């Protein structure tokens, strides 16, 4: 759905393209064996190569190449069997080599496609231009001292995948949904943790505006280093409005790089085209061109995990779940895995309901993620089996579930301990029904004279006297028969 900005001179639409830097999930860096663990003591994960000591040379980490190919396959992209590493030259204190090893004209992954499900049910196809591998830079810390800046090189040399979309996005909402989908895909693939807060997925947004219906592209501005989906959307919205204001006031948009200020909610100039770096890209002479075989690619393809779109289709087609429920269940790989574990031997719709409503409800309240759930998939499955074989009713099950969530105990243990087994013995229930009816002759009379609602009263009384354990269906049947 296109976002429209109502300007003074008419309606404007947005054109958005995103460049995402996704940290490759690996044990070591792209060209050195240093650890990539987050949160280490400053400069404790820096090899001689990472620090660009004299005479040091890069050596490719093949696993990172695999991860890039895996990601490319996960977005249905073309894999380039031959790609080249180029040096991107510029000076900054957190860039020890004075250049970043990246890929410029021959990236490892070519064009691909991501399908995004919008909340209103519509589907948007977002084209991917390319993915390439590159080194991350270190971190500069400017706020520790008035006289000095500190440099932490732990991050220097970590492998990044730069994923570039085509300018296919038309609203900040689409951009947000795209990011969520992309994050979901890379987490499914295990190629990136997608944790924007930890900085292992960052986004630059290219934004331009044009009159609604126009097919020409306006001048774009790049907003760098957006570190949350919310900020991506806020930045896009602000920038689009700003551009419309400038143009309508008679000005022109300067192609420039801008930063988003999270406190003011505004974008501001970082550097203009004149100050733009000339990166003097050239193929890195310390590295040979990267040549991978079709066999290498096919191997990775054969071992790809099932991706969200595939799972969603399966849930809808084979399990009869609604697109909404299916969508919720596939959004996180951990959730889908949990669901698939529970659904074995249980009714899919019932399972879906228990996971999305009962489990999620309690998890959200306790601020826990699915990985931190006190109730394991096996345990929830156990609970659902007890409902299925009529050991307990659905209502009792919710009670049991609360206790499971608090104690971590299995369902059958709790049912035993609490004596919650559902009573299905018709004889025993009939005895209670007869007792209730005998105790309430006036109510029976009222019911028989037309107060239908009192049926619920009788049901309630029977359930109360049986401590909720009476099988509701049996109770209903018996009351119906006796109150005829």
């Amino acid at each position: 759905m296109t976002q429209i900005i109502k300007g003074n001179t008419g309606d404007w639409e947005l054109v958005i393209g995103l460049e995402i830097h996704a940290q490759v999930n690996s044990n070591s860096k792209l060209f050195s064996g240093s650890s990539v663990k987050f949160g280490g003591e400053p400069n404790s994960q820096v090899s001689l190569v990472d620090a660009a000591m004299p005479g040091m040379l890069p050596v490719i980490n093949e696993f990172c190449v695999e991860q890039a190919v895996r990601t490319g396959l996960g977005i249905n992209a073309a894999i380039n069997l031959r790609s080249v590493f180029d040096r991107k030259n510029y000076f900054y204190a957190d860039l020890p080599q004075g250049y970043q090893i990246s890929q410029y004209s021959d990236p490892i992954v070519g064009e691909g496609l991501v399908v995004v499900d919008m909340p209103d049910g519509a589907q948007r196809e977002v084209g991917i231009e390319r993915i390439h591998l590159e080194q991350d830079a270190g971190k500069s810390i400017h706020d520790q001292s008035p006289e000095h800046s500190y440099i932490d090189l732990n991050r220097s040399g970590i492998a990044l995948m730069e994923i570039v979309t085509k300018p296919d996005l038309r609203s900040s909402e689409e951009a947000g949904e795209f990011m969520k989908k992309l994050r979901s895909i890379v987490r499914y693939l295990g190629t990136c943790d997608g944790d924007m807060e930890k900085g292992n997925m960052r986004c630059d947004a290219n934004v331009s505006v044009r009159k609604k219906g126009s097919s020409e592209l306006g001048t774009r501005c790049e907003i760098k280093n957006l570190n949350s989906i919310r900020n991506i959307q806020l930045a896009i919205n602000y920038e689009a409005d700003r551009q419309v204001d400038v143009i309508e006031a008679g000005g022109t948009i300067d192609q420039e790089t801008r930063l988003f200020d999270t406190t003011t909610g505004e974008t501001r100039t970082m550097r203009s085209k004149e100050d733009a770096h000339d990166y003097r890209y050239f193929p890195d002479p310390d590295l040979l061109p990267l040549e991978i075989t079709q066999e290498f690619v096919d191997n990775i393809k054969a071992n790809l995990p099932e991706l969200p779109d595939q799972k969603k289709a399966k849930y809808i087609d084979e399990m009869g779940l609604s697109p909404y429920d299916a969508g919720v269940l596939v959004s996180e790989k951990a959730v889908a895995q949990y669901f698939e574990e529970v659904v074995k031997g249980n009714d899919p719709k019932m399972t879906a309901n228990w996971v999305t409503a009962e489990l999620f409800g309690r998890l959200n309240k306790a601020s826990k993620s699915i990985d931190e759930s006190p109730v394991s998939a096996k345990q929830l499955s156990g609970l659902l089996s007890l409902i299925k074989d009529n050991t307990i009713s659905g209502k009792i099950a919710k009670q049991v579930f609360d206790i499971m969530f608090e104690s971590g105990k299995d369902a059958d243990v709790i049912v035993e301990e609490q004596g919650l087994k559902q009573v299905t013995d018709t004889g025993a229930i009939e005895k209670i029904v007869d007792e209730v009816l005998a105790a309430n002759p006036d109510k029976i009379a009222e019911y028989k004279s037309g107060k239908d609602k009192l049926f619920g009263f009788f049901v309630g009384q029977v359930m109360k006297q049986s401590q909720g354990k009476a099988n509701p269906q049996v109770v209903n049947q018996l009351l119906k028969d006796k109150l005829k």
Partner: protein
Amino acid sequence: MTKLTDLSVTAALIGLENKEFSAVDLAKETLKEIENKKDLNAFSVDTSDFAIKQAAQSDKKRADGKAGVIEGIPVGVKDLFCTKGFSSTACSKILNGFTPTYESTVTTNLFAAGGIMIGKTNMDEFAMGSGNLNSSNGIVKNPWTRKDDNKVLVPGGSSGGSSAAIAARLCQGALGTDTGGSIRQPASFTGITGIKPTYGRCSRYGMIAFASSLDQAGVFARSSKDCALLLEAIAGYDKKDSTSINKPVDNYISMITGDVKGKKIGIPKEYQSDKMQGEVNDYWQKAAKFFEELGAETIEISLPNTKYALPVYYIIAPAEASSNLARYDGVRYGHRAELPSGASLDDMYELTRSEGFGDEVKRRIMIGTYVLSAGYYDAYYKKAQKVRTLIANDFKQAFSKVDFVLTPTAPTSAFAVDEKMDPVTMYLNDVFTVPASLAGLPAMSLPVGLDKQNMPLGMQLIAPAFEEGKLLNAAFALEQAIGFNHKPGEVQ
């Protein structure tokens, strides 16, 4: 009684094996000789204590029957190699105070083979120069002097220190590096033998980078056989260098028979130049004749793109250098300028690099930056890489017809230290050596005679990739035939 330091590598190994003297004896003599001739300024870092320790260990190793291929031989190590615990500055102020905590692969191999690091040798800063005039440690004197004047002459560059040390018989072997001729040209200027192997034959790990696609480690000695032993010691595949080639190192010494019968020697017509000193051409023809007398055949060949080699080199090498030298920024090691308060990061870069780099280095960084810059990349760098392929193809074509190519090494004999030469004229020193560098081929220089001023002249032999053994054999054959046995300082 021959001075120990006058012995060749081969003779010294025999002496050591026969217990005529120990490695410690040899090292001590060598250090004495180095001290005697310290006015040459061939050495820039003192490693004498370490050398004696290594020599003692070497004697023990030999006694245990575990002698390496150059066990106990004192070797000068060009200061471009990072040597653990010893100053490694590439003779540049910008690396003042830098002592690596790591060892280059080449020196690791050298030590494993029994080589003794007798000292680190002087060089042109960052290997950029043809006369060792650009060193932060001062100039190196060529041990040779002209007949008619007493001018101080250059030993050549950039491996001037290593070259002078061998020529002055300060040590038996020396390591050098060659990017556009930095082993071959000094070998020619100082009357000794020097070899640059195939690109990828020796590891570049720990070798301070100048031009990544051209740099190669190599060796100096006073004979082809000595070079064979030294080269075998340092060569080999290294997975820490992605451009290192995984091919086994041949036992070069066993391939030196002196037999070149039936071999075809190519004489490239494009190397004829009127800018050559007269005697250079004479010796070139003489060398060709010697080969014929040895049973080889000389054939005129054409390397049509030769004339582009020098400009191509002086685009590609500076371009790579401008990027390789970006890391010398005062942030993590080496020199950092004293900064006024309120200085910015850019100020730190500018002051540090202005103070730390010499003029020639700055010149090449600027050229390199220019040829890679937006708007010029296609016309210069990209074009140069294309022409480089043509130059390499010229050799490929030639080697389908001949086994070796014979050319002069340098257009002249050693020039004077105070000779006013503009930078471009200085670059012309490399005109015969850069083509083999661009093509990544093994090439060596050996002395063939003296000019009218009694200054040595060298000839260059080039072979196909990874044919170092055959190359050393051909050089040996010529060397035997010529019988060059002149020494600097002889009375004529």
